[in-house]
């Protein structure tokens, strides 16, 4: 299920690398994982073919790391018997054997048994890839616990800020278009501001004394980003900071000057947990799945001796 969920190409690229992977045959449990110098140069060549780039040391370490990881996951899949009742594996092996077999009447069971006798269930690259993928999914998803509400809410609390809604501001603005006022825009704005203050004009009255703007003079519950889109950055900053319930300005926009009367401001809040529960769950699961595959791989690394002929890999920084 959802095998393509994360970057389908990753699987493909990984598969491409595995094509040149040369650890053959079935292994007794403690057989070392071997990557020869020849394997490494094949991985490097493959990478260059794919990207047109010369791999750096870090690139080489990553290529080897991924190859080792696939080998470990493959071994684990076999150890857990994931190949035993797998329809894809079986169908694939039967098809391969049918082309190899000289007996056109052989039934599927016999062909399948024949594939095992030849060891195809351990050496065939497609089978390896199917099993590696299956192992990844198993590690990530099978028996995945659904977190309790308390756990999930605790997770949400840790990441609360990422869910925070933007701040909001409501204000009135009186616009003096530089195209209308030309060189006297600044003096006109100053005079207007002085008059508004002197007469203590209510914003809805004052708002009748400006020029035409793209939205009505009363701006309601807007986020700073939305204000910036319409008025530019300077006014967006001003309305977040300036004194409230008095005429302030003039504030410059790309269009002229604005006199502003800030009516209300509210800080953004993180939504109640219930509202974002599903989004939080999805994120939690994403993190858990990545972590669990990584944990399994680390665990497997400790179980097998490694014989890796790559200085870049040995000197890699721990991930």
């Amino acid at each position, binding site marked *: 299920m*959802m095998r393509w969920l994360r970057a389908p*190409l990753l699987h493909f690229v990984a598969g491409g690398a595995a094509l040149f992977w040369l650890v053959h045959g079935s292994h007794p449990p403690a057989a070392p994982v071997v990557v020869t110098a020849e394997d490494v140069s094949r991985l490097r060549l493959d990478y260059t073919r794919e990207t047109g780039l010369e*791999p750096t040391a870090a*690139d*080489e370490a990553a290529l080897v790391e991924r190859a080792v990881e696939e080998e470990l996951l493959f071994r684990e899949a076999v150890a857990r018997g994931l190949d035993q009742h797998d329809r894809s594996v079986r169908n694939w092996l039967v098809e391969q054997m049918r082309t190899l077999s000289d007996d056109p009447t052989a039934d599927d069971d016999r062909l399948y048994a024949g594939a095992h006798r030849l060891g195809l269930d351990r050496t065939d690259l*497609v089978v390896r*890839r199917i099993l590696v993928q299956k192992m990844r999914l198993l590690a990530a998803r099978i028996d995945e616990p659904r977190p309790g509400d308390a756990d999930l809410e605790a997770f949400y609390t840790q990441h609360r800020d990422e869910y925070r809604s933007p701040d909001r501001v409501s204000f009135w603005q009186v616009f003096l278009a530089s195209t209308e006022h030309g060189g006297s825009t600044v003096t006109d704005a100053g005079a207007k501001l002085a008059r508004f203050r002197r007469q203590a004009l209510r914003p809805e009255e004052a708002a009748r004394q400006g020029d*035409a703007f793209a939205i009505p003079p009363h701006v*309601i519950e807007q986020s700073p980003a939305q204000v910036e889109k319409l008025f530019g*950055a300077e006014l967006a900053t001003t309305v977040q900071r300036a004194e409230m319930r008095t005429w302030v300005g003039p504030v410059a926009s790309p269009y002229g000057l604005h006199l502003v009367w800030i009516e209300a401001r509210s800080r953004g809040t993180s939504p109640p947990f219930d509202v974002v529960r599903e989004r939080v769950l999805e994120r939690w699961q994403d993190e858990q799945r990545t972590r669990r595959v990584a944990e399994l791989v680390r665990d497997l690394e400790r179980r097998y001796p490694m014989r890796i002929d790559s200085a870049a890999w040995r000197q890699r920084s721990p991930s």
Partner: protein
Amino acid sequence: MRGPASRPALLALALVATSAHAVPGPWQRTEAREPCASFAPFRQPYFGDTHVHTAYSSDAVFAGTRENPRGAYRFAQGQPVGLPPYDAQAKPTRTAQLRRPLDFTAVTDHAEQFGEIQICLTPGLPGYDSADCVAARTQLATPPPALPSLLPPPAVIAFLLGYGVPTPPQRFSWCGADGADCLAEASLVWQDTQAAAEQFYDRTAACTFTTFVAYEWSGQPGGNNLHRNVIFRNATVPALPTSYMEQPTPQGLWATLRSQCIDRLPGCDVLAIPHNPNVSGGLMFAPVATTAEAVVRSSMEPLVEMNQHKGDSECRPGVQSTDEICGFEKLNRLQLFSPVSDPNQVFPPLNYVRNALKEGLIQEQQLGVNPFKLGLIGSTDTHNATPGATEEQDFGANGHIGLRDHANPAFMLARVTPAGIEATPGGLAVVWAEENSRDALFAAMRRREVYGTSGTRPILRFFGGREANLRCGDPDFVATAYAGGVPMGGDIGPVRGRRSPRFGVLAFADPGTPTAPGTPLQRVQIVKGWVDSSGAAHEKVFDVAGDSHSDAAVDTATCTPSGTGSPSLCAIWSDPDFRATERAFYYARVLENPTCRWSTYLCNAQGIDCSNPAAVPTGYAECCNPDVPKTIQERAWSSPIWYRPEGIAHVRGVIRFHDAPRLDALALAIDLGGMPAGLDPSTQALTIALRDDDDVYRVTVPAGTLREVRPRQWVLNDAKGRLGGIRHLRLQRGPRSVVFRLRTVPLRLTAADRVDHFIEVSLDVGTGSVSTTPLWHFDGKSLVTRN
């Protein structure tokens, strides 16, 4: 009869909005979500992209694009995403990031090969080892050639060919009987497309970002592009997308969208947006066959994507137009993959939207319905999962699609298909909506209150109608304009008798950001198209504000601008050539001062010196080709306002509320310029509807109910109001007008909100339909139309 006295009432409307949700929009809420904190009855502009490809599109994924729809949505929200090539640690070697996030995005992957891609990339699935998949994967693993080739790699073309071009299209043989194996995979991709849209849709009151569940129908029969983006209103969508494989004609697509979504799936709504008519062989807007088809088409396709990576489709000098400003970012190919790039070929007139708008008028004259009633938007068509990345400075590095256009600039600058040097960074779709939610944005797209830009973010308002009080110095310009007419995308009739309607246009330059200021405006134009009495179509462009002879220029060596421009422009305009009998459309076009084209930035960055041709490296010849423009005049196009001689000249309505229940009453008077084509009250049913966010009032008068009491006057009188509460209904056809009057007996009209707001009024008979959405003012006892 409106003077200063009416002003406080208009201001009151703005005031009412302080209690955020007292005011409904003229559209239904179809989904469960928190209401938006920011709700503007007079609407605000939301910037978005409705045409975005990710790794779920076969052409994108086999060009190395790895980001899926989640990556695209992250990018739209302002986060960086990776571009190929990727290094061994699966880290991208290039990244892209928007300077300004978008408000909404629809990811529209090609639906034809949803399943095939997954099969080709998932070892073990049947088909994985097919020659088709092996070739595509080999292509993916092969570094691009050092110098660009004219056509995309053969393996990629082969992969796409059978799916877009032949009729009927053919799936690969390994897709199983009837394509079942591929469709099974496709349904998983479609589900994930929906899940991604859900994950990034902000359903909280913050309303920071909206996604749409969408896909692209990618029919290209005979190589002629007929592509459409299919956008769903909400999360209620069919189990599988209808692609070219299922329905190889646009007519089939509309029919299936209706039968699977609109007619059968409660809550489902959808529209389709055609794009790149410029490479359609004149077929995107080929004349329709019947009135019925015109009706379906105009309802399913209210918009056209006029500008995107593969060129601008507004108009072309020499193709039914002498407008020089149309010579803008033109793709000089007859088909997307045609090897010939030549501006002097014969281009079919209906490859261009302005001609299609004129053709729509001609068709309306003949069929009674305008099939090409198109609102105008731009989008990108990115195949890098980078919605809204329209900046000229960035396009050279980002490119259109994955590896083909990767960091080697010679790829971008070559004369290759599908675009190369002729590509353009694409445009934006701007939607005037009350709030940033799916319902609000979708409704705005339906009513065409949208405009397109060539990628920058100017703000553009355009109104038309009676507009008796509209003037540029009015701080209440917007409220006054809504009260006196219709916004972009709307219809008007003979609102000032035989005199021209008045149009108001208000344009503000892109404010830019502190580090990248926007470019000032050069001028505002109004483009008119019309049909004369002989049935011939014409067009004319009027400069209405700004300076057409401005000294604005740009130094192409440094890309430094010079000269003056306007931060804002306003005009009130009447058509000096207006004839009340002639069907017409009007749209506003705003031009910025010139700036450097993306290719100029790229050539400059490469240090190309055209004064020494011998030193120009191979692959960079186009930098020095005088036919490649060095500058660009970024622009915005409003959706048109259509003038229909038979349209609504005037509408007056009163809904009187009574303290006691069921004693409310409605009176409605509509004056039309003429009898809409196909309207015969004797033999056809007549439907009258009033709608805000609810059905306020709705009645269908069955055919034969109205009596023709005297020639050209039909009447229904019933003191008991047995039919929908109608006490009196009269339809009277005069020499120059049609008068419609309706009064009800006391009845229940509580669905109408008791606050100033927009209520749509529509009158439908047969195929004929007229509607308008006036502003109604609540005076404490009654709702009364304000126009």
